[in-house]
């Protein structure tokens, strides 16, 4: 491939990168996207969001068949599963999605290059392609969207066989007898749920004193209660100080987070899910004078520009909520800014979802955050046990909570744990974009019988006038 020149070159074909490339192409820029993985889609499509959701769905069906069909009068005898087939299905879902992105690249005439890109000078990149060649590319605008990687845990080295990251956890060849998950955040709980449903005993070890530590406190508490009822075990306020690999198992050394008596925990497989950190290896940042901050994030201004004119960064690599849709919105906003438009991301209205079952979804501020900021607020809460659709479905764990400004009634946050929480949160996100009051949501007609009525009733609850509670 000869030397090429583009208006926009995006490094990284994850959700942030490929969306930025597509938007740039839509706006008329000649665009290229580079990724060293091969199939586009980044962590999300290949080893993150998509495969995990596929396994969550498969394992959810299995769980339902095994434990809930009988309630509905359906007898199925002993239900089994073929793990290899489940994994194959997951692979197909991933492949379909990545092919989809390749198609979108072709449709938008974006040049997709497989290789490792290194910035050599402002506007210049060198790419080591998989075939072994080295290409030079010039670009008017370079967008860094290299995403993130697993945060390692000192003393517990990941080998993706006995001690795995999320990547390995999505590929286990057999259901472990005992899976220990280190980290009770989104990834830990989701993957812990998958293997638990498939028959593993799952223990989740968490350094902080609650599960889903960044969520609203009431939701974390309820989530823990529900998952414990499902059979997951939690060891909170506990740190893991080391791991010893046996022939077929792993022995973890544990200690209370505040210090104290050490203990041991044996596992067949250990999943390290303590977080993700920005990925900028071999990017060549030093060649252009870009220095990541002390946590490894690339500093940018509010136009996503780094300290080097013409070089920008979006997505996980710049920090903030490390979510695919946040990266996508930043990609769109940046492409629009480059085209002279007023591209903008509203960081106050970005939802976060945990795809366990029940799902957990939130947008805006938690009660703890509002209290810390000294904001006077009112809360409206509605349990799914009082929602007729949830009852009909037999899925009544959880609640909807809406937080609104005490004076203006403007919705400041919404936290849902329950069936389809990730979809239900959508209307509140939209409402917050338009600075809706809780009363506005309450006065909007919601179809009956629907899970979304719980959102409406929570909104009514803000004014202490829920009808169905």
């Amino acid at each position, binding site marked *: 491939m000869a030397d090429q020149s583009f208006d926009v070159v995006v490094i990284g074909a994850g959700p942030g990168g490929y969306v930025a490339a597509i938007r740039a192409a839509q706006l008329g820029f000649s665009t290229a996207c580079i990724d060293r993985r091969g199939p586009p889609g980044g962590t999300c499509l290949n080893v993150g969001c998509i495969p995990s959701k596929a396994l969550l769905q498969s394992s959810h069906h299995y769980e339902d068949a095994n434990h809930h069909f009988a309630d509905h009068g359906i007898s199925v005898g002993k239900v089994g599963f073929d793990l290899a087939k489940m994994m194959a299905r997951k692979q197909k879902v991933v492949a379909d999605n990545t092919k989809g992105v390749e198609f979108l690249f072709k449709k938008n005439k974006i040049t997709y290059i497989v290789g490792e890109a290194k910035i050599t000078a402002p506007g210049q990149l060198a790419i080591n392609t998989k075939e072994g060649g080295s290409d030079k590319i010039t670009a008017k605008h370079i967008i860094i969207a290299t995403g993130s990687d697993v945060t390692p845990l000192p003393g517990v080295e990941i080998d993706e066989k006995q001690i795995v990251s999320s990547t390995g956890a999505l590929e286990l060849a057999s259901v472990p007898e005992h899976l220990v998950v280190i980290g009770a955040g989104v990834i830990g709980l989701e993957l812990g749920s998958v293997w638990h449903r498939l028959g593993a005993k799952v223990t989740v070890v968490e350094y902080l004193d609650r599960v889903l530590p960044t969520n609203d406190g009431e939701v974390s508490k309820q989530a823990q209660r529900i998952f414990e009822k499902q059979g997951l075990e939690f060891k909170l306020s506990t740190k893991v100080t080391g791991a010893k690999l046996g022939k077929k198992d792993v022995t973890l050394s544990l200690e209370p987070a505040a210090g104290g008596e050490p203990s041991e925990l044996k596992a067949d497989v250990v999943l390290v899910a303590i977080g993700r950190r920005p990925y900028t290896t071999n990017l060549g940042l030093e060649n252009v004078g870009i220095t990541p901050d002390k946590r490894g994030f690339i500093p940018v201004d509010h136009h996503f520009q780094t300290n080097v004119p013409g070089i920008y960064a979006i997505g996980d690599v710049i920090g903030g909520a490390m979510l695919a849709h946040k990266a996508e919105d930043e990609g769109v906003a940046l492409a629009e800014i480059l085209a002279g438009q007023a591209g903008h991301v509203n960081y106050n209205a970005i939802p976060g979802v945990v795809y366990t079952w029940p799902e957990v979804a939130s947008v805006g501020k938690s009660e703890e955050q509002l209290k810390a900021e000294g904001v006077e607020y009112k809360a409206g809460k509605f349990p799914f046990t009082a929602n007729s659709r949830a009852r009909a479905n037999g899925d009544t764990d959880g609640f909807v909570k809406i937080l609104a400004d005490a004076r203006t009634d403007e919705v400041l946050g919404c936290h849902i744990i329950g069936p389809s929480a990730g979809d239900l949160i959508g209307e509140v996100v939209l409402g917050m974009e338009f600075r809706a*009051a809780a009363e506005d949501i309450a006065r909007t007609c919601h179809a009956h019988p629907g899970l979304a009525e719980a959102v409406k009733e929570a909104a009514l609850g803000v004014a202490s006038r829920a009808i169905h509670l």
Partner: protein
Amino acid sequence: MSTNIVVPTLGESVTEATVAKWFKQVGDAVAADERLVELETDKVTIEVNAPAAGTLSDISAKVGATVAVGAVLGEIGASSAKASEPKPAAATPPTPTVAAKPAAGPAPVQPATKGDVASPAAAKLMAENNLASVTGTGKDGRVTKGDVLHTLSSPPSPAPAPAPSAPRAPRPEDPREERVRMTRLRKRIAERLKEAQNTAAMLTTFNEVDMTALNACRNQYKDAFEKKHGVKLGFMSFFVKACVTALKEWPAVNAEIDGDDLVYKNFYDIGVAVGTPNGLVVPVVRDCDKLSFAEVEKTIGNYGKKARDGKLAIEDMTGGTFTISNGGVYGSLMSTPILNPPQSGILGMHKTSMRPMVMPDGKIEARPMMYLALSYDHRVIDGREAVSFLVRVKECIEDPQRILLDM
């Protein structure tokens, strides 16, 4: 592929405009950059030019409509006008059907005024409290529940709506009267004048200035000045410079009240009032202390031309610290100018007329005299400061050497 005609940025804090005139009709051919439509705002009139060549295929904002920045005014189709879509001659501005067009321009069609859109809770409160209009702070100016609650909790005048329908019975029409809608500009001027009067403790102090020395200076240098600088040596540069000298000495006159604070400004942006056929506008000459006499005259000259051509920008007229108004051009002998908020002082110049004056030696001579008026906000400037300021201006005009020597 068709292109939307959108409302451009109108200037700081100006969010909407009224469509005043369309220069083209639907079906007319337009060239790129050709003048299409005139928009009126509180401060200026703006022309919107065609973003592309083609045929004016749709006018969605008719004359009289209020439009927000970024709103779609109309559309230019490719020369073979794409009238195929059932757009009922843009009869209804917020039509979703128009948005069914394959997104040619990035801006989707928006209703004429988002400020008319109130959320369900807001609408209920407005109806229950008889509020016809509330300033919206929501997305694109929509009215939120909070906006209505805020309006209800701060009752003073605005609450019971003045605007549309009839709180007062309409005046019977009289064939001897002619009813003309106030232009946006006049409405805005009216609002600001009342605002100034209602807020400031405004009063005026007078003095008179002997223009003999100034006239002599001008006569001596005016030809050489024009030759060297390419601009006429007028009175204004002297008055502007005299004011700068006096403002430096009496900083309260250059200050502004903001809540509980007095904000003293260390820069001298002086507005020079200019009358135009559309009304009075006050473009601001920036950093007058740093400009030479020629630069002051040039700047004022440029503004005058822009004002007459209706091309003054909002930015030209904001941020001044002091204003000079000249009623003398119309023949006024003496007057009490109104303050230009949020400024605290305004100098009124008047007609120069020959008057018999008593000289220091007791003789009586005919001298060219001008009355000067300084209207000021007594909350910010006390009497001594105001009088002294005006005396300083007088001294600098009566002996321009004082400007040079900063005396």
